[in-house]
């Protein structure tokens, strides 16, 4: 085909306008302070800002915990769904329901389920000997992060399931047949055949989830507002507050640029690995 770039040019232009332009504007804003050029002043402030490090730590905890569980759970569910022969469409539709529910609605549902005095989870815990009201899910600085991670896993695992299931269904059958003929165990097949062959799909799922989890705002905002005592206060929330409630456009733009750089850095190893997988 001659000049294939001509075919992707319209889409690339649109993406550039919608995605790149606001990002470039944010970078531009980050070099100003109340309409005066400030150079790297905002970035120096960022490096000395304790709130930035606190929110970064919370965001990293949230991201890595939720993505790890989503990948593990999503992979397990994908393996199971791949084996289902009857009621295929029904089971797959049920599995993706959390993903199609609006995140705000999902977050509210979890907030109600985890309510300390009236939540259904605490009700079930009474059967295990925990008195009602003894487990303060979203009210405890220690358990609040667990609560939001649970909700995040519930909402986003189906996305991982979809990607990995599609990958599983596209795998060639010849290695499996050869392995079975040689008497390989299921564990061996899983470790030595399924996972290596599925690695590109796993990496795609991981990169997507890492990037989106790092930017998460809705679920945490609805469930805890970043509390209690900032235990679930993530970077996206800090950017939002500084921009929309404290009217500090320049500094919030600086935080946004910082977030972009960090997101790129944490997903870089996976992207390098994915590139290596594609090459082989």
């Amino acid at each position, binding site marked *: 085909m001659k000049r294939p770039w001509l075919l992707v040019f319209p889409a690339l232009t649109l993406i550039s306008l919608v995605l790149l332009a606001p990002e470039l504007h944010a970078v531009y804003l980050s070099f100003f302070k109340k309409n005066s050029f400030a150079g790297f002043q905002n970035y120096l402030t960022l490096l000395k800002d304790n709130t930035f490090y606190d929110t970064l730590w919370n965001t990293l905890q949230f991201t890595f915990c939720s993505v790890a569980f989503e990948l593990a759970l999503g992979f397990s569910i994908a393996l199971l769904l791949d084996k289902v022969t009857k009621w295929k469409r029904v089971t797959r539709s049920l599995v993706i329901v959390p993903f199609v529910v609006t995140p705000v609605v999902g977050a509210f549902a979890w907030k109600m389920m985890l309510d300390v005095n009236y939540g259904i989870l605490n009700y079930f815990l009474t059967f295990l000997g925990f008195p009602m009201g003894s487990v303060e899910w979203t*009210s405890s600085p220690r358990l609040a992060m667990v609560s939001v991670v649970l909700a995040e896993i519930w909402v986003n695992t189906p996305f991982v399931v979809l990607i990995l299931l599609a990958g599983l269904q596209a795998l060639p059958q010849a290695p499996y047949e050869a392995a079975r003929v040689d008497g390989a165990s299921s564990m061996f097949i899983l470790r030595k055949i399924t996972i290596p062959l599925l690695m590109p799909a796993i990496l795609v799922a991981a990169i997507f989830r890492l990037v989106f989890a790092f930017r998460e705002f809705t679920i945490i905002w609805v469930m805890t507002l970043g509390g209690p005592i900032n235990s679930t206060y993530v970077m996206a929330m800090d950017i939002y507050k500084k921009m929309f409630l404290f009217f500090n456009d320049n500094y919030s733009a600086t935080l946004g640029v910082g977030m972009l750089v960090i997101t790129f850095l944490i997903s870089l190893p996976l992207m390098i690995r994915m590139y290596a997988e594609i090459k082989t």
Partner: protein
Amino acid sequence: MFKTKLTRRHFLRISGMGALTLGGLSSFPQKVLAENEISWLMHPVHYSQMGQGELLEKLYSEIGIKVKAVQMPFPQYQEKLWMLLRQESPDFDIVSIGPFWMDGALMEFLEPLDNFMKKKPLIDQADMLSINTFRANGSIYGMPYRVGARILFYRKDIYKKYGLKIPKTMEEYKDNARFITKKETGVYGTLIFGEQSHFTLVDFNTHAYCFGGAYFDSPDIKKAKVILNNKNGVDAIKFWVSLKEEGLVPPGVLSTTWETFITNMQQGKVAQSIQVTFYVGPVNDPQKSKVAGLVDWAEAPYAENSGLSHGLSPAEGWGIYMPKASQKKELAWEVMRWISSPKSDLYMALHGGGPFRTSTYNTPDYKKYNPATEVIQTALKYVVPTWNPVGLIKNATEVTDKIVLELTSALAGKKSPKESIDRSADIVRSIVLG
């Protein structure tokens, strides 16, 4: 039907063109308002107190002005309002604002109403409560629209059962809370807010004012000193935190807010609390509350050594304002006059609103509708301006956010009450006074 077979290329072309067309159509300007129509940004509870729009229809039939009501829940409401005011957007001619969350930085985008009031005065302005709450820098910027105060909600059946007296002082209030928590199974003596939101600051301020506490020693911020952490302030925060430490409040205080209070009171889990008068209706609603008819109201208590003889309440409620960027200011003022009239106030009062006219409180219909009327009228006599009077405190939102973090740290036991209030005073000093 088609001469050519529909291939993937055709499908992609058609769907691409369809997407572009839909995108283009959505960017068409929205329906423009009619000449006699204005737009009002409000909270859903405001629309509800207008009989789900019935009052606006009456307004149209009487003065011929249509009002397009745009509703938005909190906190999205606050974000939307901040953005449209700062953008100097002409999209809205009237906006509703609560002084308790207002940031003084936005005053420059609001229209002073003095000239309108001179040209076409309000109907019986002397009858209106709290209008001075909306005075800033010598001008009136808003009209009261939904006014309330803090009063004591208590379970009269539990009080009667144990022969408890209505508390006059904070110490008596806490003694009642201790007694009820100990004796009445499944019921807590009181409830306080601890969620990481401005509602927690309002709850703390209620207690602080009843201890004679204050933020500044002068209404003139330029000359004022911060006195938040004086003896009264320290006593207030120690008292407030002790309610949680002694187990007198339901579990989960760090996620408790106004909705939790209403739910817990309706479910009969809380016996008393100092809360805003707007909650009288939901708590007494027989369709939703297990304790409808069992709740009574009294003045908020005061601290014994505070020098007070009545509990004080921060000015609560919402006002209506006119953005400077409005293109229909005269029409907006006509609507504001009509909405703030005695008969409109009564209508809204009978639909769950907070009356802003003395005459409304004195009507037999309202007294029958709201069993707490007399208590509310008394409480309104002892209302003081919020810590953040309209127009005076820029960066109020940031200050609120930081103080709430200190207060919740005290509730969580991460800091002592004294440390938290001292740090809060420092925050006010550094951000407000500079």
